[in-house]
């Protein structure tokens, strides 16, 4: 089938009434949680994952994807209007976006953000469409050794490009690996690390960890801090940007899209890193860097385009190689597995409608979001005034139903509560739970491939340096580690995350 045929197949799938409906639902939900601080796409997707079990495969995945990139749109709305980034990736948008709002140009800021995001989303969708088949071909030449090297590179890159001390992140990954090994060992049939509990024979369910670590512990931590202050909203006047705004921002959008697409591909990359990098790049490239922070439209256009591009292009490693590049993608991987689909090269050949349907729906979703967001801004802002005390019981209920509905077992819910406590401890210890999830998801894969490799070579590890692809990955890993040691790199990295925490 030619490229056009495949795209048409995808659009045909994506435009069925059910799939359109779920796309819309996902986009709306995503915008909603993007607007609301205190709940993010990771937690939401964790909660909705078990629900997608009851939906047809493509519909569920479309919805979850919609939530992810929808949240990017929503986060920017509050960043501009209320100086409250709903998402980490929208933090940079507050710098210039809120200033623009205070100058009465909120509408322009929001419109530029929405249109820039739409452009970026379109480009990224094409990127997936083009890269998908190419990378899959490439991935077919991957043997177990390459997968091991790729996963190690991915895990390490994820820690380095994520926030927080690298050593802590490595520890979290190790804990994740350990948790992934709970249950019956595939190769030997022995049950390990289970405390003898029958319920753990099949291992720990991904949902249990995800909801516990991200859902429950988030609620507990938020309640600890509490205090739902009233938010002061900047007035909304001009909805449409001026021609000057357009002229200033189009180049920024292009640059942002480029950075976003690239950084989304990298393991550990993602919307947040992309938006920060795009902002820094704009500042460096601009003729008036000192004006950044006073309400410069490029300061909104670039990060917004970048975070959308990254959100979508981070699907590429998952869909083509089957490797999730950040914890959002780890969730999506679970969503696929729930429906018995193993993403990777085989999906493109055996079930092309899944891949192309998803790609087409991403573009449709972006379109829906632009149409929804601009007129509905007033509604979203009203939602911000809902106090957290009304929200969290609902979140709590959805989380509990989600976990319980997996196996109708008390044990699962109690285990999730336990992970909630653990997540609480982690936050007190200032450890990021994200890498743990990645380690958990990749652990079994890593072990299986490692075993296979070493079995083939009868224990000889030199295969990792003999095979070219594997060697390249390992060199890249070492290079990344080397970068971490360089003081200059560390300073830049810390500076970027200082802004995040501020």
């Amino acid at each position: 089938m030619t490229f056009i045929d495949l795209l048409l197949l995808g659009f045909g799938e994506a435009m069925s009434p059910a799939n359109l409906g779920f796309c819309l639902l996902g986009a709306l939900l995503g915008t909603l949680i993007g607007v609301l601080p205190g709940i993010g796409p990771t937690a939401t997707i964790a909660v909705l994952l078990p629900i997608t079990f009851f939906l047809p495969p493509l519909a569920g995945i479309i919805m979850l994807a919609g939530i992810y990139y929808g949240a990017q749109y929503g986060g920017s709305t509050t960043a501009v209007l209320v100086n409250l980034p709903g998402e980490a990736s929208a933090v940079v948008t507050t710098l210039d976006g809120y200033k623009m709002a205070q100058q009465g140009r909120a509408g322009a800021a929001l419109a530029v953000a929405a249109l820039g995001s739409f452009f970026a989303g379109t480009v990224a969708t094409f990127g997936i469409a083009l890269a998908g088949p190419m990378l899959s071909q490439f991935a077919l030449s991957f043997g177990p050794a390459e997968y091991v090297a790729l996963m190690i590179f991915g895990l390490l890159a994820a820690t380095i490009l994520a926030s927080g001390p690298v050593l802590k992140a490595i520890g979290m990954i190790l804990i994740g690996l350990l948790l992934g090994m709970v249950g019956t060992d595939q190769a030997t049939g022995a049950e390990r690390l289970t405390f003898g509990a029958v319920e753990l024979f099949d291992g720990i369910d991904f949902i249990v960890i995800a909801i516990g670590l991200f859902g429950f512990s988030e609620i507990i931590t938020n309640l600890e801090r509490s205090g739902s202050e009233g938010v002061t909203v900047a007035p909304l006047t001009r909805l449409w940007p001026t021609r000057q705004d357009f002229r200033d921002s189009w180049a920024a959008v292009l640059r942002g899209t480029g950075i976003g697409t690239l950084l989304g591909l990298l393991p550990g990359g993602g919307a947040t890193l992309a938006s920060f990098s795009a902002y820094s790049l704009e500042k460096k490239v601009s003729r008036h860097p000192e004006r950044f922070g006073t309400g410069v439209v490029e300061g909104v256009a670039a990060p917004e385009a970048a975070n959308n591009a990254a959100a979508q292009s981070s699907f590429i490693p998952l869909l083509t190689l089957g490797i999730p590049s950040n914890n959002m993608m780890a969730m999506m991987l679970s969503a696929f597995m729930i429906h018995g689909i193993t993403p990777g090269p085989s999906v493109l050949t055996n079930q092309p409608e899944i891949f192309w349907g998803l790609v087409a729906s991403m573009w449709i979703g972006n379109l829906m979001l632009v149409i929804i967001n601009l007129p509905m801004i007033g509604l979203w802002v009203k939602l911000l005034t809902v106090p957290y005390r009304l929200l969290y019981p609902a979140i709590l209920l959805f989380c509990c139903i989600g976990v319980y509905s997996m196996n109708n077992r008390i044990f699962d819910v109690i285990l999730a509560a336990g992970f909630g406590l653990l997540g609480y401890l982690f936050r007190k210890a200032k450890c990021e739970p994200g890498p743990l999830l990645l380690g958990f998801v990749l652990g079994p894969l890593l072990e299986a491939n490692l075993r296979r490799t070493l079995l083939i070579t009868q224990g000889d590890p030199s295969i990792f340096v003999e095979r070219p692809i594997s060697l390249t990955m390992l060199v890249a890993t070492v290079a990344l580690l080397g970068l971490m040691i360089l003081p200059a790199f560390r300073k830049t990295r810390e500076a970027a995350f200082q802004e995040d925490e501020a």
Partner: protein
Amino acid sequence: MAGPGVPNRGDRPDLLTAAIFMGFGALGLWLARGLEAGTVAQMGAAYLPRVVCILLIGVGLVIGIAALRRDAVSIEAMRLRPLAVITLAIVGFAFAATHLGFVLAALWLIIAGSLADPGGKWRTVLLLAGGLTAFGALVFVKGLGVQVPLWPV
């Protein structure tokens, strides 16, 4: 500078991290003590777990020692109420859902869960509980077919 071990030293969050890491490592090693490690070529069930645990203990040690040498940083204040209330609410939900059905479990969850927030008013809580329970019953049990009995069996 005062010597190590004096109260104005020790990055507490990092010390907690070190404790967690080493705890997991030790626990893993203990749990896997009866299993076969095998050889590199033929990895047994315990091979990779042991490697990971040893690495964990190592990382924990490094973090812990570095933390001991830094100036004191305290841990964010711990408030017991949200922690205890939410945990109990969740556990209670699980038991209630199994024996008492969805409606009672959901009501418990929301009412008990609201106790974690001191500022709530009873009327709001009860209205919220009723509304959410109805929503949950309609959307999840009737609509999506989640297999939970609505009423006590």
